[in-house]
């Protein structure tokens, strides 16, 4: 691992051009340095100042200025288009620096533009890609305008219309609601009905630049007030026979649903892991509280329940990061398989992170209800977090992506597919370019769960922690067997969006198993060739699998006491060293 001066020396010596990992580490450090120490009240991007902006319903102005100066827009633009985007796992790592300080800034400055942009990277033509790259590298914003309140995630029913106009081009009619940055974006990606016929071939994606539109025919709708991410500029757009040129069409006419579903595979893989940074801050805030506060003549940290909650939250962060890592790297390595991994990630990661924060709030006690001061950031993060389960694909919509694939996976993949390649689980190794063209809506393949199945065939080591891991893995494989049987037995009517709750529960169990497989893969890879020593230790994995098994309703045997001791020690070490609570253990840039 190259960090700090070591990295600079390597670069200065010019021994070799910096590789992907060096570029990623440099960029993460750049953001951290520029955004500064959030606990320092002298910093204009401190938690205190970010809370003030939130109370005022504004995006932090110094925050936006800092991200402008950092040129963050270029991180959403592929290198081939002149930007900095080369790997999705790296983008997640970079955005964590923003998300650990302020979810609203992460979404409002950047992620909205990224969500819009992937439609163009996956399906746009050269002129559209160049135009978008110019906007984003120049610090501009792009809105993704899919949503119509009346139809929610059932966007095949969307009514917003782009009617072919006489003499070419389209006429836009209708409204889009709850659209981030609608008012200030330089361009919008509009999901539009281009045919009145029902079905999935009646919509198209349009990339519309704001400049040059007939201003009399469109308007920005009033802003929404929200529970969380209060700084985000959520409003809407209304068009009334607004002409746009034929060149606005992205991809083929009528292929909008497919374009959207491909783009979703990228955004659903990448977004949830960014919020690992948010829960990292929540955990850090509560560790500080627990170490400082005295109750019953002990520090809160000495109370077993509190200590166990903190360890549990840390382990959940590692689990979420493992699934996020596998899903984002799968887009590069196993693009044919990513539709289920992405949906599982978008479904499970925000849920586990939110649950962890609720558990942490119990340790924080009454302080979690206080809106300012030393712990005030906690309640803001807790309010902001649910937006990740709502925005652009609700939890149930993600389950509905998995449900039609369950029976095919059960018949064709589980217990017979090849395990995923080792690189899927290596946080710092190089990846091939994104291959958008290989993303498919369903493949019936799943190498990730095969990693879980293969793991139990390996002889466990002699330590109690390794034997605990083995016992838990066996239970999880048994769970996969049950999910397989139940999936095979799903009646056709339970393989639709209107499936019974039992089918949704199957998608939930499967997502948990994919998370377990990811954690197993991460630990396996770390234990080879000088990987991270903590990740190579079976203790965290035993704790992670134990929590996942309990999430599945199982009652696994108690873990050896050494597991919690090891995890607890790491919680404290990272708190004092101020390194990140994720797979990267990133030190502060200083």
């Amino acid at each position, binding site marked *: 691992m190259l960090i700090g001066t070591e990295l600079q020396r390597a670069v200065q010596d010019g021994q070799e051009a910096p590789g992907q990992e060096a570029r990623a580490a440099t960029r993460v450090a750049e953001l951290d340095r520029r955004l500064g120490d959030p606990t320092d009240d002298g910093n204009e991007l401190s938690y205190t100042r970010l809370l003030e902006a939130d109370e005022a319903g504004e995006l932090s102005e110094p925050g936006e200025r800092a991200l402008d100066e950092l040129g963050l827009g270029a991180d959403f633009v592929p290198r081939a288009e002149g930007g900095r985007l080369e790997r999705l796992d790296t983008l997640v790592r970079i955005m964590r620096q923003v998300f650990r300080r302020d979810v609203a800034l992460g979404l409002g400055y950047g992620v909205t533009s990224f969500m819009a942009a992937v439609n163009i990277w996956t399906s746009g033509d050269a002129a559209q890609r160049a135009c978008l790259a110019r906007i984003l590298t120049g610090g501009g914003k792009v809105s993704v305008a899919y949503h119509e309140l009346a139809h929610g995630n059932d966007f095949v029913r969307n009514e917003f219309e782009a009617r072919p106009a006489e003499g070419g081009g389209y006429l836009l009619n209708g409204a889009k609601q709850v659209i981030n940055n609608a008012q200030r974006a330089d361009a919008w990606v509009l999901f539009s009905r281009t045919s009145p*016929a029902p079905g999935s071939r009646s919509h198209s994606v349009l990339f519309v630049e704001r400049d040059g539109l007939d201003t009399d025919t469109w308007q920005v709708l009033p802003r929404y007030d929200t529970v969380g991410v209060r700084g985000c500029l959520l409003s809407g757009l209304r068009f009334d026979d607004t002409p746009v040129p034929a060149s606005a069409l992205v991809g083929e006419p009528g292929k909008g649903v497919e374009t959207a579903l491909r783009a979703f595979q990228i955004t659903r893989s990448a977004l949830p892991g960014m919020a690992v940074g948010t829960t990292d801050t929540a955990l850090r805030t509560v560790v500080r509280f627990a170490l400082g506060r005295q109750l019953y003549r002990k520090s809160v940290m000495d109370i077993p329940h509190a200590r166990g909650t903190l360890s549990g939250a840390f382990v959940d962060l590692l689990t979420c990061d493992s699934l996020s890592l596998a899903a984002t790297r799968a887009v590069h390595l196993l693009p044919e398989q990513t539709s289920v991994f992405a949906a599982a990630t978008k479904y499970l990661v925000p849920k586990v992170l939110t649950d962890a924060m609720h558990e942490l709030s119990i340790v924080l006690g009454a302080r979690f209800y206080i809106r300012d001061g030393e712990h005030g950031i906690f309640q803001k993060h807790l309010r902001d977090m649910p937006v990740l389960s709502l925005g652009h694909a609700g939890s149930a919509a993600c389950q509905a*992506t998995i449900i*039609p694939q369950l*029976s095919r996976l059960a018949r064709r993949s589980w217990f017979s597919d090849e395990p995923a390649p080792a690189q899927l689980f290596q946080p710092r190794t190089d990846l091939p370019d994104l291959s958008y063209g290989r993303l498919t*809506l369903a493949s019936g393949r799943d190498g990730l769960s095969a990693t879980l199945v293969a793991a139990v065939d390996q002889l466990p080591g002699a330590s109690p922690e390794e034997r605990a891991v083995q016992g838990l893995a066996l239970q999880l494989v048994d769970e996969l067997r049950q999910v397989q049987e139940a999936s095979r037995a799903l009646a056709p009517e339970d393989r*639709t969006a209107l499936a019974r709750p039992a089918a949704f529960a199957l998608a939930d169990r499967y997502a948990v198993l994919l998370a377990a497989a990811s954690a197993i893969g991460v630990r396996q890879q770390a234990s080879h060739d000088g990987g991270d020593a903590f990740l190579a230790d079976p203790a965290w994995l035993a704790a992670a699998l134990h929590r996942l098994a309990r999430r599945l309703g199982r009652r696994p045997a108690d873990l050896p006491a050494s597991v919690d001791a090891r995890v607890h020690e790491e919680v404290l070490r990272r708190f004092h060293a101020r390194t990140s609570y994720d797979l990267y253990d990133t030190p502060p840039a200083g």
Partner: protein
Amino acid sequence: MPVPTTGHTTESLTTWLAERIALYLKRQPAEIDPDVPLAEYGLDSVAALSLCGDIEDDFDLVIEPTAAWDYPTVHALAGHLVEELAAEAAKDGGA
């Protein structure tokens, strides 16, 4: 083993599709007009993807997951499947 691929006709596939789609829609097969777009019966995009998975399983034929979007009626889909099955049989025969 899959059913032999040569024995399928547009008629037999139409019958199979109507029966299968009726299950998705909780209707009787006779209620499914083979020339009416399936979306008009309320067959959602998720069910359309599931249907393509069923076709793969029952006919051992790999088709685009979006086939039911591109061939939106029972007749259109049956016609498409006959062509795909014939192409598959020709490929197997030539191998």
